[in-house]
């Protein structure tokens, strides 16, 4: 740096540019060796994670995997047993929730029942002493954004579940937080509404550009919504990556089974089919049905077996096949041509085939 201190203007420019790139590079949320124990139970067991500015990030895992506890430690509702939480590069580990530049959409929405919708949305601005005119404008904008501009004077109890969800979103976003935390935000909604809210959430996130960090146990939701996701299991992160990365290249058996479903081939079956030791995962939709006894294409693997079950599921049919060495394989075929799921019947001999490139080596 001392070399560049020749002309002051240049230095200023440099430092400016330097700071700009820095602020873009500083993660909005950084977790370092984060641990949380409740008595004898370790809920979070050493989490390191960086979430970049503007990301839509999902923490995915089964219940009890520690994802919600991590979210609550970022919000400030729980104190970590050890480790640190950085928000925008600043150590926030010991800050109380009301001093943290993050806002939460709660699982039960936590709307104040004694206030109107508009008063709920206004609360954060009121607490932060935003002038009245600006408050009114920002509340109106926030309600318009979630398409509830006409409902400001209603009480939360007069709204439907989806509308309450949107009020909770507006109440959090109106404060323009550094990070928006969402705790199972769509968990209480029925399927159709949930799919609609997923699209809406994604659109809103693109519009406001705020970092969204959301917790879910629903892998479809995580894959649909997020730019990147972390898969949690037993208080640890199993894998972090972009949605398609995690889906296509699951790092562990847990991820292969939890994010989508996978056929795992290991032990004697691996030696018989793949020809070497190890554990391998193949997605059911990458397995094709081949007529029994047909020739294997180069670069493909073929397994002969007997059909155990045929499950018709509307757009697809799931074919469960008993292969060699006690291996059970599931293939998913699109019902594009055969409305009755094809001619496959229980007990038929069948050949399954997939390309080697569709198979991933995983750790068990």
């Amino acid at each position, binding site marked *: 740096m001392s070399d560049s201190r020749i002309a002051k203007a240049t230095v200023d420019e440099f430092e400016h540019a330097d700071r700009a790139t820095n602020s873009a590079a500083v993660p909005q949320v950084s977790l370092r060796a984060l641990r949380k124990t409740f008595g004898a139970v370790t809920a979070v067991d050493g989490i390191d994670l960086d979430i970049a500015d503007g990301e839509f990030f999902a923490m995915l895992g089964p219940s009890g995997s520690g994802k919600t506890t991590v979210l609550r430690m970022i*919000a*400030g509702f729980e104190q970590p047993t050890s480790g640190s939480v950085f928000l925008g590069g600043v150590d926030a580990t010991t800050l109380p929730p009301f001093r943290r530049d993050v806002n*939460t959409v709660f699982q*039960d929405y936590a709307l104040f*029942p004694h206030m109107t919708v508009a008063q709920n949305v206004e609360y*954060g601005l009121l607490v932060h002493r935003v002038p009245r005119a600006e408050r009114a404008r920002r509340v109106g904008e926030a309600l318009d954004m979630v398409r509830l501009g006409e409902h400001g004077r209603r009480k939360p109890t007069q709204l439907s579940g989806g509308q309450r969800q949107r009020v909770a979103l507006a109440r959090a976003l109106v404060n323009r937080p550094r990070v928006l935390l969402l705790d199972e935000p769509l968990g209480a909604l029925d399927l159709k509404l949930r799919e609609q809210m997923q699209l809406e959430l994604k659109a809103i996130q693109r519009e406001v550009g705020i970092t969204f960090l959301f917790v879910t146990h629903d892998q479809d939701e995580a894959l649909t919504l997020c730019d990147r996701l972390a898969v949690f299991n037993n208080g640890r992160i199993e894998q972090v990556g972009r949605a398609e990365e995690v889906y296509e290249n699951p790092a562990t058996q847990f991820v292969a089974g939890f994010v989508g479903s996978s056929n795992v081939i290991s032990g004697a079956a691996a030696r018989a089919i793949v020809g070497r030791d190890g554990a391998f995962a193949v997605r059911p939709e990458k397995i094709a049905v081949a007529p029994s006894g047909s020739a294997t294409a180069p670069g493909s693997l073929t397994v002969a077996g007997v059909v155990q079950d045929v499950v018709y599921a509307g757009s697809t049919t799931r074919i469960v096949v008993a292969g060699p060495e006690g291996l059970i394989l599931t293939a998913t075929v699109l019902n594009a041509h055969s409305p009755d799921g094809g001619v496959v019947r229980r007990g038929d001999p069948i050949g399954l085939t997939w390309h080697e490139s569709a198979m991933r080596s995983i750790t068990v």
Partner: protein
Amino acid sequence: MARPVAPRDRRGALTAFFATRPKTRLVLLLGAPMLWLVVMYLGSIAVMLLSAFWSVDGFTGKVVQSYSLANFAELFTNPLYGTVALRTLLIAVGVTVIDAVIALPLALYMAKVASPRVRIILVVAVTTPLWASYLVKAYAWRVLLAPNGPIDWVSGGNSPGYGLPATVITLAYLWLPYMIIPVFAGFDRVSDSLFEASFDLGAGAWRTLRSVALPLVFPAIAAGSIFTFSLTLGDYIAVGIVGGKTQMIANVIYGQLVTANDQPLAAALSLIPLAAIVLYLLAMRRTGALENV
């Protein structure tokens, strides 16, 4: 197929009988309590109302069942009754405010902070005094407040002694559980996430208490205040034990009824606390506090 009819076939007969006769069901269910409520309870109040218009023969001491407004004229012209009624009202308000101020933080702690173990201990501690006799508790305060008694020792001779302050303290003590329990239940019903949402939106503890906790438990405070307020209005024993020469409206009623043997005037006087509590309930209803109790 010719098995004997099992006795279980007859077991549902009664249920089947009532299943199609909703009115019979209702009469059997509510008959006895309605009889009690209407005949015994409201009936006695009606008789009292009626007797307020009667008078007493000054010579024989017998009640004369002729109607006049003399008792009410006496109520409004004799300044003693107005003074005592106002004093009683102020004592009731004071007791209610003191109980609410003590109950709020304690109930908040019990419902939201304390561990389940500590919570049970506190609930037991709050309700145990209800098992002890009212008289014992009042006399305990008489001992505490006595000249050269424990409060005198501790405060260096600054015990309020017997009188109005002693009455307020004793009544506030006696009715405190009736305030704590509903407020505790009120806080218990408020989801933790509402407090967290308030903190999350940038409010500190004080703001959260004022803007979220208090409005949400206000119906519970109102419910508790109905107990503390009405129980105080009707009390004449505690004030007799620790109140020195202080008189409350119930003392005057008791005096007219027992000492002066003027049941009609006593009945007329009874309408003062009755009217006060009815007005209080109406005021509470206007605040919406009674809707979710």
